């Protein structure tokens, strides 16, 4: 999850984001737009999948290890 957050962060920030900023278009849409939305979708899916694997907090005030 940490990897996802930090990785997502890196991919959204320069300079990595610049790698995908070209005059190309995908079905008429600029590449960078497609890139950003694609990362976005991956982050959402990744979070949903990872969350499913995380143990649920049993109770509101139960004790558990630090994340």
């Amino acid at each position, binding site marked *: *999850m*940490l990897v*996802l*957050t930090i990785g*997502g*962060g890196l991919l*959204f*920030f*320069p300079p990595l*984001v*610049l790698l995908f*900023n070209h005059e190309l*278009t995908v*079905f*008429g*849409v*600029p590449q*960078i*737009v497609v890139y*950003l*939305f694609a990362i*976005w*979708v991956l*982050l*959402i*899916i*990744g*979070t*949903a999948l990872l*969350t499913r694997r*995380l143990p*649920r*907090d049993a109770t*509101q*005030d*139960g*004790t*558990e*290890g*630090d*994340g």
Partner: protein
Amino acid sequence: MLSADFVIATAIAYVGLLFVLAYFGDRRAKANKNSWLNSPAVYTLSISVYCTSWTFYGAVGNAARSGLEFLTIYLGPTLVFVGWYFLLRRLVRISHLHRITSLADLLSSRFGKSSRLGVLVTCIAVVGIAPYIALQLKAVTSSIQAVAGSSEFGQGSLKGIDDVGLAFGVAAGMALFTILFGTRHVDAKEQHHGVVAAIAFEAVVKLTALVAVGVFVVFIGGGFEGIFRLAAERGLAVDTATSFDSRWLTTMGLSIAAIVCLPRQFQVTVVENSNENHLRVAGWAFPAYMMAMSIFILPIAVYGLAVMPEGSNPDMFALTLPLSQGQNGLALFAFIGGFSSATSMIILESIALSIMVSNHIIMPMVLKLSAIRQNSDGQGVTRVLLIARRVSIILILSLGFFYFFFTRDSDALAPIGLISFTAIAQFFPALLAAIFWRDASLKAVTAAISAGFVVWAWSCFLPSFDSVSPAVSALLDAGPWGISWLRPEAMFGLEGWDPLAHAAFWSLSINIVTLVIGSLITSPSALERIQATAFVDVFRHSGLPQRVFVPGSATANDLFFVAERVLGEKRAAALFEMVARERGVDPVMMEPTPEFVAHLERELAGSIGAASAHVMLSKVVAGADVSLEEMMQMADETQQAKEYSQRLEKTSEELRLTAQKLEDANAQLRELDSQKDEFLSQVSHEVRTPMTSIRSFSEILLEPDELDEVQRHRFVSTIHHESLRLTKLLDEILDLSALERGERSWENVPVDAEEALNRALAVCDALLRQKGFQVEFGERSGTTMVEGDADRLCQVFINLISNAVKYNDAPQPRLRVTSLVRSGNFVVDIADNGPGIPKAERTLIFEKFARGLRGSVDQTGAGLGLAISRQIVTRMNGTLELAQGQLSGACFRLRLPILGQK
């Protein structure tokens, strides 16, 4: 064609619908804790209050003006929610545990329940949010005007009313609506289920509206490809090359801070959260919502730029595009969507801010003035609280309106919002420090937030009045008093930067540096340390810090008096009854324990904020409120010094004890030494007497023919007698020293102690009769088995009896013997009516050669009998001591652990 009157009527009808929704939402939430209102979906939708009219209108305008930059506002929060496990979960857990009601509450609670910090945060939040509120007013006003301006009869009743009047009307309506919505009652946890339900509904409306407009635009524009091709043909290529500069970073950073620190986001995400597990869904669903919101923004913007006439306001494309195509229904829907996003933001933001204002500014003032005491009405505080909320809502909206009034000529929506974001971001370093950094201190945080705020006000807030006042413009150009390095948009000579990036850089850098350095050089107070541990280790210790209130003079009645005034009579009574029932006592008889006071404090904190609750209860419960345990754990400097001095004290105490022990040991040694000397002299003395008589008699015998046979015989028998005595003495000495050194060992075997006693009595029978003793028997135990040596035991008894005989000079001598079993011991008392043993000699008589003064008259014994007897008894694991007897004389008590009684 749409008219302004019609859209205003629709808007009012829509608000009515929201109100009905909120009303039923509240009732439903009250009736049933597990209703659909309490679902992760509603929670996620309520978080989407983040998407305001800024998103709805401003993002389109932003996309039209600066390309992809608008995306950062959503990508930042996406990162925060994707990482919900690290930050949001922690915030929610802390807030649930400590009944946090706002960001100001969280910070003041964390930093030693400082009310001053609460006030600071509240003031900054109120000022900082003003532009954001103004943005919503502007958006709604513009949207109404966009509709009105679209046709010649569109003005309707708005004719003659300028945008200021319209904005004032909107602001007033919003204030009324928010008051009706949000301040109907004071909830324990500041949760507003009804409002949340309405917000969730609005979230659906605005998303549907924006998507509807988007789909429409994509449809008429010939698909995504068509739109971008059209734009390219008109030379409107989305300029992406310059997007990823310092602004990209800045807005991304600011939006990360904003999603957590904006008062309304904190309210919906943290305070209104009823179940931590809802975050699991929100973690991916909220980013998905934002993505759905923004997916059509670029097409709308690009298409709008391409087809709308030159000079049309890109902020209103979402509205004007359908209008220009004659799609009035869609335009109305779009208007409602935009209106929806503005109302939900204003409602929640004002509720969140009013909670802060009333809890941190108004309530402490009221408490200080002690108006409650005069107000005997049980609903006192609740009513004051509600009035305070209403006043603060009006104040907040007024501030927003004034900001709008002064800056109404500045063009776009998004930059206004970013001014607020920058202000709110000043809390973010403090927030992170509060929950992750134990050493962060109140002073540092206060200084950091203040410094950041001042820089923000100078470099971000002030320039936004550029168009309003020539003085501000001059200031921007030349700096104050011509000091160029203080120019708001080029501080310290940092020129050529984007103003937003410049302001954010300086304010946040100074903020963070102050926070870090300040925390490192200041030392937090005890309460701060307690709270720091509780916050930072929230997942480690589940419990709250147990503060030890010394209950002092406070009675349960006093506490109830306070609780009643804050919580209302019903809830206070319910709370007290519940606690009393848990403890199984009558509520009237209940004692206010520290735990109960802490519990009560948290309950009150839910209504009036941690700092106020703390002040209030501290007033009632006079006494210290520092947990000793926590104090011990935390190495406070004073504590360390104290510990050090305590250690020193302890060491010196130990040294003193050691010296004392040494002295004692030395004294004992000397005592032993003198005892040894005494022993030797006693022995010499004891040996010398018979030796002298033996020598003198033998000398007489050596003289020839001076004695007759009778005399000679007498002398020889005397010599014999004396040598026997000498032998006996030497035997005894040997016996004793052997016993003492444990050399003479015997097998302890089960023996009948009673039988040994009887045997001793039989042996002494003749002696007793001879001396005319009257022997009495007390209780006799009968056969009693002990571990020991029968002969030795018998020897001890004989010794005791013969002592009693020897020293008894009473005219009618008596001896009393009892034996009994008492608590697992065989106890024999041998008492006589002799002179007894003087107090001074009682400890001495068991020493060697100590016969006692009386005994010194009689020289028949060596004075070793009692010493030997005691040794013997000790070897049998028993004791021999003097006791208070039933006769006037001495009484020896022998005690042996029994084996078993037959």
